[in-house]
């Protein structure tokens, strides 16, 4: 049995990162849980495969004309500060912006970089950055939001999907909100939106968009918004929104869904109470106590009992499954492993239902059980078993070596092998069904007779087969 601290560290890294390798687990063994949380929240090292190396090998990534999911995958796989990438993924799922409409991946990548920069700061700043983000402005047509004729798209979604949730504002509030954001646009909006609409790369490739405030089309008149009155602009509206309890509850429930346990999809939140109302209350209190600071709310969440007791209550998203598996297998994680095959590998996440930079709608992805369809499940199992079952992958080779070294004499049982292989891929609670499945891999009479107590010779091929089985298990789909 693994120690409680080890189990908690694995749990923390599954949720606040993309899993944990056995070597990482060793390096954290002397660190207290609380200290590890702090190191994730305030990383001293944010290294990853450097951009210059990536751009030299994949020159098309330089302009981000295509391949941004692969670029992001390199970052997620090689980063030493995984929570930063996890939070970017979190906001990408809420402030969902897709290239299917924008045809400008570099602008979307700038948005993701904004999430990295502002994603754990004060929520007001993040929402303001979002409201001036060119990808979001074009995504929700705010370039067409002018004083003479408002376009409500952004005004509606900032309230419904980005902050407060349905039922906490009126239709008039939407109109007044939209008025406040008139003139919040992008430079050369006519030409840029035309190029996006026509998917034009001519004459000299895509031009990345920048924010531009057009005072001549801004409505500076008085507005009534959420019970307050004044000549509000977008900054005022963001400030008012961020002071609402509904906003705190909405963000708290999103954080709970992403880090703690799967909730029902957002459209059902209005009619379905939270899974753990007390936990949501705790996060709401933290939001106000720490002046809307997301990092402080995260600290409360990650050190709470409800988080520590939430193991195996989430289904890994496709990106979590793919990146976590690749981190374990040791692929694409340093300068010498820059390889064109990553473009195909990250596309596997698309087939499982999560195409980075292309969420299905402004609602983002529905999570939890909705990740699992019969086709997606086959893809998930095949992906993990192919990468962890490949002894040519450095990470796999290393795991096999470690297990063989740990179990070097022949006095070990099948049960010990199962536990060692499970722990190596981040599974600390192995079900009876999974253990029984492993036993079926062995044809020896002793194993069939004594089950997990049978003693066997531990050979590399045996370890590999058990590892492959472990990542095909139900437990590996969860975290």
């Amino acid at each position, binding site marked *: 049995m693994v120690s409680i601290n080890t189990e908690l560290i694995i749990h923390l890294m599954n949720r606040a990162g993309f899993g944990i390798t056995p070597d990482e687990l060793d390096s954290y063994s002397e660190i207290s849980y609380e200290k590890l949380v702090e190191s994730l929240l305030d990383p001293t090292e944010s290294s990853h495969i450097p951009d210059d190396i990536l751009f030299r090998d994949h020159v098309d990534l330089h302009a981000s004309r295509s391949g941004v999911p*692969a670029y992001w995958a390199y970052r997620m796989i090689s980063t030493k500060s995984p929570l930063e990438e996890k939070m970017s993924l979190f906001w990408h799922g809420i402030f969902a912006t897709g290239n299917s409409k924008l045809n400008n991946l570099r602008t979307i990548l700038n948005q993701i970089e904004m999430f990295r920069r502002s994603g754990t700061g004060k929520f007001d700043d993040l929402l303001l950055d979002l409201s001036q983000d060119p990808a979001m402005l074009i995504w929700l047509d705010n370039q067409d939001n002018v004083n003479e004729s408002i376009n409500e798209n952004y005004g509606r979604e900032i309230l419904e999907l980005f902050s407060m949730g349905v039922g906490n504002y009126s239709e008039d509030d939407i109109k007044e909100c939209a008025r406040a954001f008139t003139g919040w646009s992008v430079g050369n909006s006519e030409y840029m939106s035309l190029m996006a609409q026509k998917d034009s790369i*001519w*004459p*000299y490739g895509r031009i990345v968009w920048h924010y531009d405030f057009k005072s001549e089309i801004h409505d500076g008149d008085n507005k009534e918004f959420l019970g307050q009155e004044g000549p509000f602009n977008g900054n005022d509206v963001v400030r008012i929104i961020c002071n609402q309890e509904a906003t705190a509850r909405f963000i708290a429930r999103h954080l709970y869904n992403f880090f703690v346990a799967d909730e029902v999809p957002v459209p059902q939140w209005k009619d379905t109470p939270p899974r753990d109302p007390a936990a949501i209350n705790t996060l709401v209190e933290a939001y106000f106590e720490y002046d809307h600071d997301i990092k402080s709310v995260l600290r409360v969440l990650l050190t709470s009992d409800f988080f520590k007791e939430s193991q195996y209550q989430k289904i890994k998203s496709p990106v979590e499954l793919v990146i976590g598996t690749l981190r374990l297998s040791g692929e694409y994680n340093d300068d010498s492993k820059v390889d064109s095959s990553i473009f195909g590998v990250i596309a596997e996440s698309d087939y499982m239902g999560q195409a980075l930079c292309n969420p299905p709608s402004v609602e983002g992805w529905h999570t939890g059980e909705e990740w699992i369809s019969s086709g997606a499940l086959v893809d998930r199992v095949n992906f993990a078993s192919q990468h962890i079952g490949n002894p040519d992958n450095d990470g796999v080779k290393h795991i096999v070596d470690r297990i063989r070294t740990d179990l070097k004499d022949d006095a070990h049982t099948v049960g010990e092998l199962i536990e060692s292989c499970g722990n190596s891929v981040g599974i600390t609670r192995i079900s009876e069904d999974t253990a029984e499945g492993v036993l079926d891999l062995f044809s020896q009479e002793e194993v069939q007779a004594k089950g997990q107590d049978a003693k066997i010779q531990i050979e590399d091929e045996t370890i590999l087969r058990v590892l492959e089985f472990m990542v095909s298990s139900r437990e590996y789909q969860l975290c």
Partner: protein
Amino acid sequence: MKTVKTMGINSNQPVGRGFNFPYDIAIRDDLGKSRTIYLLNRPNSATRMGTRIQYFTFEEDWIGEFGNPLEDDEAKFTKPVTLAFDSNGQLHVTDEATDEIKIFDSEGKFQRSIKLDSDSQEDGERFGPAGIAIDSDDFIYVSSRYLNLIQKLTPEGRIVLQWGCNGNGPGEFNMPWGMDIDSQRCLYVADWRNDRVQKFDADGSFLRSFGESGKKSGQFHRPSSVAVDSNLNVAVADWGNERVQIFNNEGLVLNVLEGDATLSQWSHEWLDVNLDEREARNRANLKTLDLPRHLSNAYHEASQTEHKFWGPVSVKFDSDDQLYVTEHSRHRIQVFEPVELT
């Protein structure tokens, strides 16, 4: 330095006229007719579709293309890097994925290849030929990206000289890339990850280096290409800083170019049949920017305007000392007047 013209247009097609992530050019001046430019495209890392060499005249008359992965096995490229002509008009192309130099005639017909290796290479270690330069006696100089060395080869591919190892001292390299040879047979190497240019004599003896890491004048961020004109002025593609710097023979900075592109002939032709974009473009201001602080750097300024260099990966001089700057992320070539005319 004033611009002479801008050449090219973007194309996402795997065949035909138009550039897609151009990586290097070579210029043929000795045809007795119009100057011909050979341009290497290296698009689409995922499929390599569209990787090929196109050639066209200085007046932008498109002539043809070769080396497409869709074509026969011998001629096709995998990860081609740089180009150079020998005195016989044979085009040499390095391919860092296959560790070879492929040689074509001026009409793109494959002639032969030179396989590259080194006695300092360990099992499984790749050579990774990056830059190439050919002297007036047709000796070939090639830089090894992975082994951090320079080799001098006979035209047949026999090694006559080799120097360098990984490091940042004189004669050491960190992922060297583009090279050029001046009229005094000295070799210049863009020592990419050491952020400097090193100069050697024809025997590989170190003469001097210039540049250091940074954004200021005379400093570099990942210089990818170097070219020397007939007056020994040196142009360096300061790739990571999105600019080109011109040095005199003493290493003093003469000029820093950030790009000033105009519409090419092919671009005019395209806009003439896409009037909605031409009209919207005419109403736009693609030069002025007021970027927030976090976007105020060379990369973002280049990406959000159109006239500035974006990915200036290669510099070359023609026989009249006109400077050609190839930008992979703007899919074009900007041509500048000779240094002395400025």
